[in-house]
């Protein structure tokens, strides 16, 4: 398992053609501190005291995993849909292990859609906490190079 890295690239430059369906990235270990969870419980960024991770923590973890897997969401992409399934509550000050992979890629109405899947588990017990996916309109399509 790889540890958090602050020097990962900030923006993806991965072309649609480079994405491989079902190729796994991770698991990436990420801490869910009380401070992180508290800043996502009420108005974003405002500190609050919480004992459990509020739901807004998980899209943030998805983005952190994406950043570590492929440098993040590419510039010019559009987030179209997001789905989350909650399997267990997560106490704060725990580490989670996030695995991510491309679940599907397809062109619909001349637009390239990429589904990226996430599996978030308690790093200590391996209990599944949240699963989900982002469906993104990718900035490049088949046969197109990144800028």
């Amino acid at each position, binding site marked *: 398992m790889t540890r958090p890295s602050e020097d990962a690239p900030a923006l993806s430059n991965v072309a649609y053609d480079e994405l491989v369906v079902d190729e796994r990235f991770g698991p990436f270990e990420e801490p869910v501190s009380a401070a992180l969870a508290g800043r996502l419980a009420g108005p974003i960024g405002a500190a609050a005291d919480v004992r459990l991770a509020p*739901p807004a923590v998980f899209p943030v973890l998805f983005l952190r995993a994406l950043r570590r897997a492929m440098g993040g969401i590419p510039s010019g992409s559009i987030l179209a849909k997001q789905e989350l399934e*909650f399997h267990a509550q997560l106490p704060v000050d725990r580490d989670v292990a996030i695995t991510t992979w491309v679940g599907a890629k397809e062109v619909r109405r001349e637009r390239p859609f990429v589904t990226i899947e996430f599996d978030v588990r308690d790093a200590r017990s391996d209990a599944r906490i949240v699963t989900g996916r982002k469906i993104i309109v990718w900035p490049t399509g088949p046969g197109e190079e990144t800028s």
Partner: protein
Amino acid sequence: MSAARGAFPTVTDTVTQDNIDAYAELSGDHNPLHVDPAAAAASEFGGIIAHGPIALHAFFRAATEWLGVEALPAGTEVKVTYRAPTRPGDSVGCELLALDGDVVEAACVKPDGSTVVSVRAVLPG
């Protein structure tokens, strides 16, 4: 659905550059569309837009308040469609559209009535 539940609450968030910057810091997503005014101005959006999940935040706050919990319980499912970007200064309120047992349909809307996020969720009580 639990009989203890009251009316689905109305929660409104105001999008600010401060909370966009906070979200960028927390998520590591420093896309120039969110944090670089010059780059965002030159984009198709013509200015800063917020990270997508910021527009969803009012729904998460309303859902946890409605259930009286900090964390959504096992069995919760949330499906989100992002329909329009939000920008600093936008007010985004979560409105209940329909409720059928544990199934909630909601929308995050701006004061002009335009929907930025549509949500269908199962919120077990």
